[in-house]
């Protein structure tokens, strides 16, 4: 039985964790300085595993002297990746807040740092996140709690649970809430069926197939959860910003696209292939979402050593995840993922059909960077998982494409918000007409016959960072670069795009 298997496997894992823990009892950890962006965040652990946790995170066998602040580099023990430099304090029990061994990590308050440290702690055996009020209760059990402190803590915890309640309510609204609700109901139902199977025997008409039904339901849910989690970290993208890379063959308009999007000549453009050598990074605020856009050298077998280095950097850049196959000509798609989290008050651009869009800037309503016939440039977010359809329906339908900049915002918004699994498809639907009134030409959107999905023939604009914003070039080989520049200039000056061919 999958369920039994899963349960016993979970139990064994759990038992192993317990056994790995050198001393009895769980070690708990939590941010104890409140949530949200702040200067310094204090992460506290309590329990027998604190000693090991502090050693693992600081990467040093010796502990700092008790109750003295020490500056340490904090690393993720699993990856050795540095997370932050911060102050750590070691409180050996019983001279600590809870009476148990405690450690405190005072790290920079950025959400990425805090979540990184928490994740690293959570991966250590024997450590688990604390429940609300658990530190206080431990302190109480050890007889360490002062009355006034308990009262103060009670208020704080109250505030925290209040915030959690509000947050939970926020999350309960909308699609994500409904999704979680459905999972919860599935689990409750499975549990209820199992309990009924146990508590009502043969004389109560509980059929034997209950077990296999529950088994199937839990299996399906497990897969769904797995898919959802694989698509995780969207919330992190929202907090930490989306990294988008413009990559592709040389001389297809990557740098022009970058300049268009950031509205300044950040990268040098010239008609000569191989102009961009180094990676040019620009930080943008796209409809409220932080985006770091990187322009890279065109991918080709360069002879010039400087350009070769640029190409290799370009190849390194977009591919932290296996899915992000860099430099595949015409791979005009990108994915992004993350734990969907509603951005309170972030940009008006929602990335869903019908929602109002706020363009990046009024002039850049429409972009139509023409691609070289031998390939297009791909821009993708990293880490990227789900792929947009290679040939989006918008293209085949010959409908109007959306303006790249607004689309970029939409795409980023979508990328950080939309529940996974639904990412690709709805975004392939036609966008609202851009507010500036600028339209692409239907005919221009139809790819040239030879520019099949594999061969590309499209330069995916930054908008393509998310699947919604597919920006296509005309699929004619060897189109001169200045056409594109002229086109872009027209966009910036607000003139209408060229007529359909």
């Amino acid at each position, binding site marked *: 039985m999958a369920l039994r298997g899963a349960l016993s496997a979970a139990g064994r894992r759990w038992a192993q964790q317990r056994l790995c823990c050198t001393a*009895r009892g769980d070690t708990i950890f939590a941010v104890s300085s409140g949530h949200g962006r702040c200067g310094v965040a204090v992460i506290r652990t309590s329990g027998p595993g604190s000693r090991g946790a502090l050693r693992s995170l600081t990467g040093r066998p010796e502990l700092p002297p008790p109750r003295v602040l020490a500056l340490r580099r904090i690393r993720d023990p699993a990856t050795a990746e540095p997370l932050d430099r911060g102050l750590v304090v070691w409180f050996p029990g019983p001279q600590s807040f809870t009476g148990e061994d405690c450690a405190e990590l005072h790290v920079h308050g950025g959400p990425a740092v805090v979540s990184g440290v928490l994740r690293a702690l959570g991966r250590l055996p024997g450590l688990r996140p604390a429940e609300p*009020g658990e530190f206080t209760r431990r302190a109480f059990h050890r007889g360490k709690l*002062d*009355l006034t402190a*308990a009262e*103060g803590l009670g208020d704080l915890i109250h505030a925290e649970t209040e915030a959690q309640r509000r947050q939970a309510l926020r999350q309960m609204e909308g699609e994500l809430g409904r999704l979680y609700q459905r999972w919860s109901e599935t689990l409750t139902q499975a549990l209820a069926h199992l309990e009924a199977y146990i*508590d009502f025997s043969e004389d109560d008409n509980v059929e034997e197939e209950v077990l296999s039904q529950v088994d199937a339901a839990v299996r399906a849910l497990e897969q769904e959860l797995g898919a959802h989690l694989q698509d995780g970290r969207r919330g992190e993208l929202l907090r930490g910003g989306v990294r988008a890379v413009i990559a592709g063959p040389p001389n297809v308009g990557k740098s022009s696209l970058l300049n268009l999007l950031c509205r300044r000549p950040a990268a040098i453009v010239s008609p000569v292939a191989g102009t961009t050598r180094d990676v040019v990074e620009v930080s943008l605020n796209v409809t409220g979402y932080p985006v770091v856009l990187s322009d890279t050298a065109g991918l080709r077998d360069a002879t010039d050593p400087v350009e070769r280095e640029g190409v290799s950097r370009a190849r390194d850049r977009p591919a932290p995840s296996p899915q992000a196959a860099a430099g595949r000509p015409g791979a005009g798609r990108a994915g992004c993922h993350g734990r969907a989290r509603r951005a309170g008050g972030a940009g008006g651009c929602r990335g869903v059909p019908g929602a109002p869009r706020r363009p990046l800037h009024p002039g850049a309503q429409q972009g139509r960077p023409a691609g070289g016939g031998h390939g297009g440039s791909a821009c993708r977010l990293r880490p990227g998982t789900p792929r947009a359809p290679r040939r989006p329906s918008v293209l085949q339908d010959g409908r109007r494409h959306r303006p790249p900049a607004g689309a970029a915002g939409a795409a980023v918004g979508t990328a950080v918000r939309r529940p996974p699994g639904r990412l690709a498809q709805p975004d392939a639907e036609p966008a609202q007409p851009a507010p500036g009134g600028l339209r692409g030409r239907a005919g221009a959107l139809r790819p040239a016959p030879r520019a099949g999905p594999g061969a590309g023939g499209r330069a995916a604009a930054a908008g393509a960072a998310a699947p919604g914003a597919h920006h296509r070039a005309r699929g004619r080989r060897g189109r001169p670069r200045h056409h594109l520049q002229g086109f872009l200039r027209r966009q910036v000056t607000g003139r209408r795009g060229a007529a359909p061919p």
Partner: protein
Amino acid sequence: MLCRGRWRRLALPPAPGPGPRRAGSGAAPAAGYEVVVIGGGHAGTEAAAAAARGGARTLLLTHKIGTIGQLSCNPSFGGIGKGHLVREVDALDGLCGRVCDLAGVHYKVLNRCKGPAVWGLRAQVDRGLYRDNMRKEILNTPLLTVHEASVEDLLLTEPEPDHPGKCRVRGVVLGDGSTVHAGSVILTTGTFLRGMIHVGLEKHPAGRLGDQPSIGLAQTLERLGFAVGRLKTGTPPRLAKDTIDFSGLEERTADNPPVPFSFLSKAVWIKPEDQLSCYLTYTNPKAQQIVQDNLHLNNHVRETTKGPRYCPSLEAKVLRFPNREHQVWLEPEGLESNVIYPQGLSMTLPPELQEQVIKSIRGLEKAKMLQPGYGVQYDYLDPRQLTASLESRLVQRLFFAGQINGTTGYEEAAAQGVIAGINACLRVRGKPPFIVSRTEGYIGVLIDDLTTLGTNEPYRMFTSRVEFRMSLRPDNADARLTHRGFEEAGCVSQQRYEQAVKMKAALEDGIAALKSLQFSVSKWSQLIPEVRLSSSRRSPMSAFDVLQYPEANMEILARAIPEPLRKFAKWRELSERLKIEAAYEWCVVNQQEEIEEVRRDEALQLPEDLDYFAIDASLSTEVREKLSSNRPQTIGAVSRIPGITPAAIVNLLRFVKNKHRKAEKLKAFPQTDKYVPGKMYSEKAASQTQISAELSEEEPESTFVKTPV
């Protein structure tokens, strides 16, 4: 519920001669007893016997000595979850398990195909044998006197100052106006408090067919301010066995060998092959039609009073699950009896319609109805007015047990009876109460659920109500409770205690021996080829690990390694228990930490007289209301009340702490109990970081003690 019918009264054997301590119905009982138990049902008999075992001079008051131990409804004991309760009652040396083993006619372990933690020990018992054996047991219990009388009122006096409650009970007033003084009183009146029997449109006051209800007592309780609710239940008609055609029905035979209820029973009284069978038949659309067409003739069903959800009447089933066949089990009422109990056919239609329903069912076409089914509505007490020892908060030394607390079922009643009996006895002696924790037994879960959460429908035990189901198994009830019962409650006989000690030692020996036998997986595969071991197991494996495999058992292991395992395998009961211990070992180890946590929380007592509306703590009105109505006794119980926030729990922790500290201070310097308001506000405003820094040091000597009320 019950159904002691006319046929039963006619068949009643002559009451046995007066026992050594039996006061005749005419003679007044001696003037004073330590414990007085009102009611002779499953809760009353267990309570009286437990108090007497504990050493208290006990009086059992019942309407009729002839009905002591009467099975009012179904002629069976145990079931899933309920079998656990019987085992636990037995582990505390209660009566029902032993008496069942003297009366069982059809033993069946339910849930056999599932794990041993949820096996449901169950038996059909011979109604007459059960009652006679129970009566014999009660009448022969030392220190226990039985008296036939109705109780009309309670004698009350000033409360003891160190306990909550506005008065204390000191005796009872009997129907004839005489009084009996008592140290503690246990009320186990079942469905008799303002009991009202319904058949069709007729209704008449009765606790059970043919028995008078208790009205005076109900009025007394109401006058004292107890919150009382109303519940209903029912019992099916009875059929004449010789008029039923069993030929076309499914037969269910009993287990062979039967598994006895009691840890003391090596075997059951009946020969395995002499056990009786049960038969299964089904209702059909015709029966449904009759029920639906005649709802207007069915007062009991139309009432809004809550009935037992898990033992519904035929009417309830037809209304909730129409167009289905419903099972009807035809259960024998005894070896000699010509009565069949059709389980699942509980109904309150007028008798002539009940006959029509019966005749519509396959196999029962010609069945003769001996007694119609009927419903009972009765008063029950909101059990949240009780402490975990089942003593009421309003009236000191007054205990309640059984159906009066809103439960359904013999086993639930018996379990409460044992606890009430033990505690009534301990209370008189001035000893701390005997409380079974949720982590120790189903009894603990039952009483904690009732006293903390209350109930608004008849409460039935289920394994799913129990958090630590893997540890609280029927096989180990003696290991969990017998030692405590002997040492703390004094309610367990020396013989049983010694047996439990012996078994515990043998189990420990056996586990140690099994764990010491360590071989590689390949060696094990040679030794016991019949057990397929997974090759991914890390070597070496102990014999205890091997025993976890479904195919493995002690016999196989002892064959492979006679020394030292043979001696364990020869003891059948021990070898079965070793197998179960091995199977659950990893779950139990995992649960241990959680169990410890719950125990720690349960060790934190909340004052019983705490006025939640008056205390100065940051608690919302909603939380205060919940705490006030549920009156949790420990922090653990607080955490189980729905809607209580972590913040509220922390604030209550503060009160526990405050109370302890205050008590200590008072002991040390009675007049230094002072209140320093300034400090509180300054520290309250401090951020958590500051607080944590302050608290990181050793706790400062605090002179700050706030008066809670």
